[in-house]
């Protein structure tokens, strides 16, 4: 079984994000691997450990994705691939999907996993777009992925704890909600060692024409008739919350 894990990095939310001139200063921000992609990677590694598989980690080179790919190698993927070209951090999901789909089409993966969403892709478009462009089976918000021959089996969970188990023919693409186990830790020493001994494969490509949605403005919610805005000050907000809890008799002095 040939598995691909589509990965990307996203702004580190630990840092306060400042909007400058209506946009995020992407060049000054620090980036971390998207946590859902980490879950997809873990699930792929678990499948590999369970049934044996050849796993490739794939990322579009929109900046510094090397550390993320070396980390994936250190965790145990067989190959890391970076799609290189003239890509900026503001690559749209549509463009990203196009690049990933083209690469995956060529490589004929049996199974492609990626995070169900990312903090800059809250609707989880990537999974659906790539599968659509490739014309292969797709499901999202899934977990507990197991493979058997040319089929893949997985679980979707609905509100109220209801579950459904699915079965899909390969090739297929799944948007992973969570891995069966928390993503494994990889030591700094191991990543360093992989940086010395392994290489990231590069595949060249360029973005094609896609419709682009432009941002007109970013703004905070405006207070309407029914809402009272408390502002940003932690103390003030905390006092308000305490007052409400007291009012509703939820606090005991």
């Amino acid at each position, binding site marked *: 079984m040939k598995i691909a894990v589509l990965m990307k990095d996203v702004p*580190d939310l*630990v*840092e*306060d994000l400042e909007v400058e001139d209506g946009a995020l200063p992407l060049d000054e921000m*620090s980036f*971390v691997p998207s946590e859902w992609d980490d879950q997809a990677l873990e699930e792929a590694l678990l499948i590999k450990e369970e049934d044996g598989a050849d796993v490739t980690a794939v990322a579009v080179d929109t900046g510094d994705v090397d550390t993320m790919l070396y980390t994936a190698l250190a*965790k145990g993927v067989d190959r890391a691939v970076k799609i290189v070209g003239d890509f900026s951090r503001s690559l749209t999901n549509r463009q990203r999907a196009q690049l990933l789909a083209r690469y995956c089409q060529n490589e004929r993966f049996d199974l492609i996993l990626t995070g169900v969403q990312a903090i800059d892709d809250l609707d989880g478009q990537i999974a659906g777009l790539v599968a659509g462009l490739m014309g292969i089976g797709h499901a999202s918000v899934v977990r507990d992925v197991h493979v058997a021959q040319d089929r893949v089996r997985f679980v979707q969970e609905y509100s109220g704890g209801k579950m459904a188990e699915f079965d899909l023919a390969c090739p297929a693409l799944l948007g992973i909600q969570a891995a069966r186990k*928390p993503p*494994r*830790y*990889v*030591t*700094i*020493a*191991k*990543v*360093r060692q992989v940086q010395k001994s392994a290489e990231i494969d590069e595949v060249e490509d360029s973005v094609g024409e896609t419709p682009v949605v432009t941002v007109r403005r970013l703004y905070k919610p405006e207070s309407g008739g029914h809402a009272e805005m408390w502002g940003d000050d932690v103390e003030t907000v905390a006092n308000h919350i305490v007052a409400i809890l007291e009012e509703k008799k939820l606090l005991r002095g």
Partner: protein
Amino acid sequence: MTVRTVLMIFTVAMILVSGGLFMRRLATLIRVMKGARPAQRTDRLGARVQSVVEHVLLHRRMFRITYSGLLHYLIFSGFVVLLIDIVETVGEIFFPGFTVGRVLAPLVDIWVLLVALGILMALYNRLVIRPARFHGSDEKDAYLILGLIAAIIVGIVIHDSFFPFVAREVLHVADPVARSHFLGWALSRVWLRLGWTGPTAASIGYAVGYVMDMGVVLAFLAYLPYSKHFHIFAAVPNIFLRNLGPKGALLAQPPEDTMAIRTFNDFTWKDLLDLYTCTECGRCQAVCPAHAAGQPLSPKMVILKLRDALNEQLAAKTVGNADTPPIAGQVISQDELWACTTCGACQEACPVFIEHVPKIVGLRAALLEDGDIEANAQKVLVAWDRQGNSFGQPARKRPAWAKGLDVPIKDARKEPVDWLWFVGDFAALDPRVQRLSQLIARLLHQAGVDFGILYEGEVNAGNEALRIGEYGLFETLAQKNIQALNQAQYQRIFTTDPHSLNALKNEYQKLGFHREVRHYTEAFLELIETGRLTVRPLSMRATYHDPCYLGRWNGIVEAPRRLLERLGVELVEMPRHGVQSFCCGAGGGRIWMEETNITDRPANQRIREAMTLPDVHYFVVACPKDVSMFSASVTAMGVENALRVVDMAELLAVAVGLETAEDAALISS
């Protein structure tokens, strides 16, 4: 054949067989030690000899438990006197007419009495007192050994009692020391009365005693290397070869490849010697906070399980094979390994200087390499890597506590300072401790100290990363700090955090950083003693908790006490204090891990210990982690009114007149 010939043949045969078995076992152990990682332990001969004198001849650590120390001393001294008996007994048979003289001979009898007393005390200890620390030890072995020692001393008296008759009737020599062996002499009066003095009766009687003595001694020789009593041989070299390097350095050298311990070849040879030296006394278990908390860890059992696993592998000839069951995770479970706070109490208690912590951490490193680590601790490792602090706060926020303060704090990276202050994660980022950091800044200002910090240039010191087993991360963090420190211009460096102190002082040496680092209690003591800071004595009673990384690992126990004295605090010691302090439970990464398995938190136990002290209402701490651990305990236990946790900085602030209304309560009480 006379009794002499029989016993000579017996003795030679026993020496050959027992000696052979002993040497064979010794050769096996030496071979496995040769295959292990290196350790430099033969430097500083003078200090090594001195420690042997202190801890073997004088039994210093053994006497920390007076009863056990005494009984062991009685039996131990016996082994020295046993030499006289062996020389005499073998001599009188092989070289008729040989004696050790009238001075040495009665020593043997005195010793017999002392050892007998020791054995009785040991039996009373094991049967009646039954200390919990023996739980898990091989008690059968202990009884067997006590029985064998008893057989030896009884044998000695028996053969001494028959020797006068054998000498006269069989060997035809004089026995000038017959009366000197006063116990044997007394018993020989019985044989006279019974008429067992003829050649045959005396020969039989003598042979029985001889076999009980020499036979058992030689059998002992063969059995020892397989039993806990191998410590009789191993303890002296193990104490001689103990770690004399900086105590707080987990590793003397950067690991060659990895610090992970996967097979027995990955331990150092000294680690393996440790395994065979363990006496199963359980002193380490008795002081272990993880064990006391109800967790599955016992430092004693770690050593014993490792020894048993190594013995199995030695028998199966699989030492070093990668396909043997994993040590980390199987021989010693994950829960055991992650339970350790690396407090070092076990090492401090061990009478034969076994080092548990490096073994535990090396095994943790193996788990970590396989990606197995407790989820919360994993988050902290990632946060250290990304943000440089355990709080997962942006690096920029590190100096936020210093903003808006009425005293200026210099950026030591930009301008020269006299004192450089390494703040540490908790003091910089924990809201409960930030207040104390501000106090320290104001105190330094008051004393007119020209000081500065590294601002965003400082990252976590890496002490805990190393103790979680993540050497690469430790090294990354350390290198960042060392780079910032090298950029800065300063005369002296101090820290408020014992964990940072330990890393800077002991662990950074191997990365080329060799500055003398002080704890703030030492720094402030100096400010007061040199008159730079004037204090108004507080007149209060308090107890003081020694942080493991200050007291035990760095021996800084005097400075905080002298500082308390200067501050007018009447110190009431808890039963466990100084280097024998009891851990709060936070070290070694534990502070971030889930408290599963914990039935009684070590910090709560410590608070209860303090509450047994008469009229003590203040619990003084000198470590930011202690502030948060003990405040949480006092609150959870609902004893805030009976015992208040105060940091040394608060006492200082009140004593120099920086007090706030809240702190002023310290003096009025």
